C-alpha cells in the first residue's frame, strides 16, 4: 500500500515539474514581447536604454534556462515572481484573491453534489419514467448552459427584479460570515449547475449499469426493500466508476469559476486570470496556469488513491493479499 501511494505521489511530482517547464516555455515562445505591451504597444522612439532597463526589471535579459531556474527557485520559496504590469508580487495577488475563489468553489461543489447525488439515487430508487425524463432534461440543459447565461439569468431574477441577493463583490467569510454567504449564493448556484450536470449524467449512467448486475437481484432476493438495495448495494458500486468524474468536476470548477467570477464581479483568481490575459501579463499568467495544472494533478492523484482505498479488489491486490 505504501509503495502504491509513494509511487503515485512520485509520479505526480514529476508531472508537476514537467508541466512547469512546459508552461514556462510556452510563455516565452508565444509571439508578443511583454516589454512592448508594457510600453503601450510600440517601441518607436523609445530610448533603447529605457527598453533595456525594463527588460532587466522584468528579468528578460537573462537566458531562458536561467529565467526558468530563477522562477522555479522562487516558487519553491513561495515567491511566484512579479506581475509584469503592476510589479506587485504575484504571491500577494494570489493570496489576496484565493479566498474568494475558494469560497465559491467549495460552495458550488457542496451544492452540486448535494443536488446530483440525491437526485441520481432517488431516480434509481423510484424508477419513475417522468422523473427520469426530468433528470435527463435538467442534465441536457445544464450541460448546454454557459455559466454566464445562467449567471445573468440569476442576476436578473434575484438581483435586479427581486433584489434579494447581492450580485457582485465579495465579503470575506472571516469578516462577515452571513454577508459572505449571501454574496456567494448566486455565483455558487451558477457554478454548481456547470458541475452538477456532468456528475449527474455519469452517476445516473453508472447506477443504471450497476442496477442490471446480478448482485442487485441477489440483494432484492434476500428480502431487502428497494431503497435498501439501492443505498447499500447499487450506490457503493456505482460510485466507483463515477469517481472519474472528479476530474471533470475539478476542470469544470476551474473553468466555470473564471466566467462566474467575471459575471458576478468577484475579485478572485478567475478575474485575475482574465485581467492578466488582457494585459498580456505573463508573470501572473504563468503562475496561475501552473496553479491550475497543480490542481489537476492533485485531483487525479486523489482519485487514484481513492480508487485504491474504496475498491477492495484493488486494495488487496495492492497489498499483495489477493489470491
Amino acid at each position, binding site marked *: 500500500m505504501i509503495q502504491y501511494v509513494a509511487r503515485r505521489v512520485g509520479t505526480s511530482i514529476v508531472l508537476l515539474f514537467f508541466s512547469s517547464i512546459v508552461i514556462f516555455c510556452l510563455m516565452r515562445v508565444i509571439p508578443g514581447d511583454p516589454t512592448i505591451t508594457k510600453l503601450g504597444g510600440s517601441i518607436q522612439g523609445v530610448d533603447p536604454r529605457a527598453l533595456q532597463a525594463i527588460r532587466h526589471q522584468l528579468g528578460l535579459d537573462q537566458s531562458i534556462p536561467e529565467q526558468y531556474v530563477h522562477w522555479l527557485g522562487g516558487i519553491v520559496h513561495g515567491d511566484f515572481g512579479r506581475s509584469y504590469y503592476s510589479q506587485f508580487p504575484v504571491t500577494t495577488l494570489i493570496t489576496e484573491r484565493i479566498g474568494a475563489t475558494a469560497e465559491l468553489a467549495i460552495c458550488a461543489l457542496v451544492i452540486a453534489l448535494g443536488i446530483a447525488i440525491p437526485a441520481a439515487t432517488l431516480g434509481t430508487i423510484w*424508477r419513475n419514467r417522468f422523473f427520469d425524463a426530468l433528470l435527463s432534461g435538467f442534465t441536457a440543459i445544464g450541460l448546454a448552459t454557459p455559466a454566464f447565461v445562467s449567471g445573468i439569468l440569476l442576476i436578473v431574477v434575484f438581483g435586479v427584479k427581486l433584489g434579494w441577493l447581492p450580485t457582485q463583490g465579495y465579503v470575506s467569510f472571516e469578516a462577515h460570515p452571513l454577508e459572505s454567504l449571501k454574496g456567494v449564493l448566486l455565483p455558487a448556484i451558477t457554478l454548481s449547475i456547470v458541475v452538477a450536470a456532468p456528475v449527474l449524467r455519469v452517476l445516473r449512467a453508472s447506477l443504471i449499469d450497476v442496477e*442490471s*448486475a*446480478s*448482485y442487485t*437481484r*441477489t*440483494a*432484492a*432476493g*434476500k*428480502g*431487502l*426493500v*428497494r431503497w435498501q438495495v439501492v443505498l*447499500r*448495494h447499487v450506490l*457503493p*458500486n456505482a460510485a*466507483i466508476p463515477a469517481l472519474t468524474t472528479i476530474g471533470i468536476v475539478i476542470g469544470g470548477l476551474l473553468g466555470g469559476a473564471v466566467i462566474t467570477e467575471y459575471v458576478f464581479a468577484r475579485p478572485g483568481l478567475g478575474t485575475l486570470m482574465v485581467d492578466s490575459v488582457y494585459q498580456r501579463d505573463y508573470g501572473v499568467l504563468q503562475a496561475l496556469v501552473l496553479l491550475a495544472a497543480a490542481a489537476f494533478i492533485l485531483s487525479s492523484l486523489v482519485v487514484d488513491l481513492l480508487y485504491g482505498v*474504496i*475498491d*477492495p*479488489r484493488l486494495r*488487496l491486490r495492492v497489498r499483495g493479499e*489477493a*489470491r
Partner: protein
Amino acid sequence: MSEQTPILDVRDLHVEFPLPGGTITPVRGVSFTLDPRQRLGIVGESGSGKSLTALSLMRLLSPPGRIGGGEVLLDGQDLTKLSEREMARVRGGKLALVYQDPMSSLNPVQTIGRQIVEAIRTHEDVSRRAARDRAIDLLGEVGLPQPAKRFDSYPHQFSGGMRQRVMIAMAISAGPDVLIADEPTTALDVTTQARIIDLLGRLVDEHDMAVILITHDLGVAASFCDDVHVMYAGRIVEKSSSEPLFHQPVHPYTEALLNAICRLDFDVTKPIAAIPGQPPAPQAIPEGCPFHPRCPYAFQKCTGDVPGVTVLPNGREAECHLAADRAGAVVA
C-alpha cells in the same frame, strides 16, 4: 405425490413482457404444487421459461417483465397479491433463490460475512454479534474451510464453487420453507457440481426445506429429485416422479431429450439423435401443440388442437394427444 397440504401451489402462472412490438408471453400457464420437504426438478432447454418461472415466484422479474395472470400460493398466501413491502418479507424469509452465476451474484465491495449477516438481520431481530456467529456457523455448514477467517473476505477472493456455497449459505440463512435453485451448478466444473448437489441434498434434509431444482442437466435431475416437471415453450408438458420419467417417458419431448443424451456405450458411427429444429421463440409459438413441428409422432390433430392435461396413473401428467396411448403402452 403425497397427501400433505402443498406448501407451494402455483396456478396457471403467466409471465409476459409488454414490448413496443407486442406483448410476448414466455410462461403460458404453469401450474404445479410443491409439498414440504419435496425435491422437485424442473427441466427444459434454454428459453423454455424455467428461469422466468423461478424469478416470478419471487417476484423478481425485471421490468418490463411482469406476472400476467395466475396465483402463487405459499402456505395459503397468494404472493401475487402482496404489496412490495410484504413480498420483501417473504423473500429470503420463506422463499429463497440461489442463482446460476455465482461469479457475479455477490456484491464485490462488501465482505461475504457482511452480506450474510444482512440476510439474517433482515428477517430476524438479532444482534450483530449473534448474526455473525450464525453466519460463521452457516459458512461451516456449507463446507467453507476456516469460516471465521473467511467471514471477512471479499467475493473475488473465492473460487466459483466456494462462491456458490456462500450464496447457498446466504439463501438458507433465514430458514426459508422453500429453496429454489436456478441452475446452481451450470457455471461450475463437473466435480464441483457433484459436491454442490450433495451439499444441497444434505442441507435440504437438515433444514427441513422443500427444493425446486431448475436445471437442463437431466442427470442431475434424475439423481437429486423426487419428482420432475418438464417444461417446453412456456408450459409444463410432463409431470412425473423421477424414476418412471427417465425409464418410460410419456411426452415425445421428454423421450427426445433422453434419446439425445450421449452415453459411453454409444455406437460412434451413428449420428447423435439431436432433436431437429429449434425451440420456438415466445413470439412464434406454433398452433396446436407447440412441439408438433419437431415431434416424430405428430399427426393431424396436433397441428390444430392444443393438447390438454392428460392425467395418468401414479400421479403422472402429460400434455399430449397421444399421452394415454403412450402411457398404456408403457405401463406394464
